[in-house]
């Protein structure tokens, strides 16, 4: 089954649309009355999107949703997704793939903040850049993302993989400040630069293939090790937090 949702122009284009109903299961199970919210107004899906559904599906995994047009202010797409595929051809709004447990989301453009928040499984690939709190947790929760993979081909914002507790996060570009902050388990890989990586981490593993600026001063230097033949410094910490995380860093600078 192929579901094509084309975003229509809106009178107030900046007002976000909350569309947690846009997940493959909704269309697999069939719906006549799917609604989305523009602020406090509940609207039929068709008021925001041109909707086209082709073909049938035997399982949720056979459903593909394609989002066309300006979806940069459409929030919560793919929330609780448990199978199938969502392909976003442009940018996507906040909270894409919240709590996702299976399936795949592909974003051709940029993703706004909280991409893959508290994700449990499945895979998100963002070909543009991701906003703050990519693959992170929620306010007050000790554990954030617990499984699955988030891969960002551009840059990621601040607090990337905050409270990461499982799964893997790969940022091909640079990550913002405090990436991997308070992480507990799981694996974070940053191909570019970041700052203050893995502050207060208690466990897990992180690789920074570029430079960490303003390196947190409370990581213990274990020594030089080769990663893919290149020299890296291995750290353990965060000592301030009785942490036992491991950090491999190509280059780093302290704020001294």
């Amino acid at each position: 089954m192929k579901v094509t949702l084309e975003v229509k122009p809106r009178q107030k284009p900046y007002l976000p649309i909350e569309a947690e109903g846009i997940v493959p299961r909704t269309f697999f199970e069939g719906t006549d009355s799917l609604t989305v919210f523009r602020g406090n107004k509940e609207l039929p899906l068709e008021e925001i999107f041109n909707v086209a559904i082709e073909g049938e599906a035997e399982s949720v995994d056979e459903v593909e949703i394609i989002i066309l047009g300006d979806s940069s202010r459409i929030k919560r797409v793919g929330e609780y997704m448990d199978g199938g595929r969502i392909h976003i051809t442009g940018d996507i709004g906040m909270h894409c793939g919240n709590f996702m447990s299976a399936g795949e989301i592909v974003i051709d453009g940029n993703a706004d903040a909280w991409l893959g928040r508290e994700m449990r499984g499945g895979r998100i690939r963002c070909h543009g850049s991701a906003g703050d709190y990519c693959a992170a947790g929620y306010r007050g929760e000790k554990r954030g993302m617990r499984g699955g993979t988030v891969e960002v081909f551009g840059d990621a914002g601040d607090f990337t993989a905050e409270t990461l507790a499982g799964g893997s996060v790969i940022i091909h570009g640079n990550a913002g400040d405090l990436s991997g902050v308070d992480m507990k388990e799981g694996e974070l890989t940053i191909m570019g630069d970041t700052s203050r990586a893995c502050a207060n981490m208690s466990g897990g593993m992180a690789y920074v293939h570029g430079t960490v600026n303003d390196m947190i001063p409370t990581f213990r230097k274990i020594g030089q090790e080769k990663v893919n033949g290149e020299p890296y410094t291995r750290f353990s910490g965060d000592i301030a937090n009785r942490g036992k995380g491991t950090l491999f860093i190509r280059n780093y600078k302290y704020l001294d």
Partner: protein
Amino acid sequence: MKFILNTGRTVTQGRHVEHKYHQGYFEETSSCFIHPLDLMDLDLEDGEHVEVVSEWGSVVLRAVSCEDLRKGMIFVPLGPFANHIIPPRTHSTGMPDFKNITVELARTERERLTQWELMEKIGGKRYENQ
């Protein structure tokens, strides 16, 4: 020249917070406190005007010599002047960067706008029936 901008409360700003159309409020919130050595480097006298430029815009302020500051840092009291150039970005925390912002400073002959002129520049309308 590059500087680090911090904003914050001052007692004078606080005293005028209920009197925003007063000259005192204007004078305090359009002040740019700066280390005397930096003033010299900028070829400025105490009380002359500087243009402060951030990634978000620029504003003309009055330079005030102040030795509390480290060289390379300026301080502007909380108010519409500082906010004219503070980026509205919050890093998704809800709180903008009111402190620790990189700016460029240069001497200028231009006059300061008033706080009302700043508001009118963005579509506001001053209230004058005082």
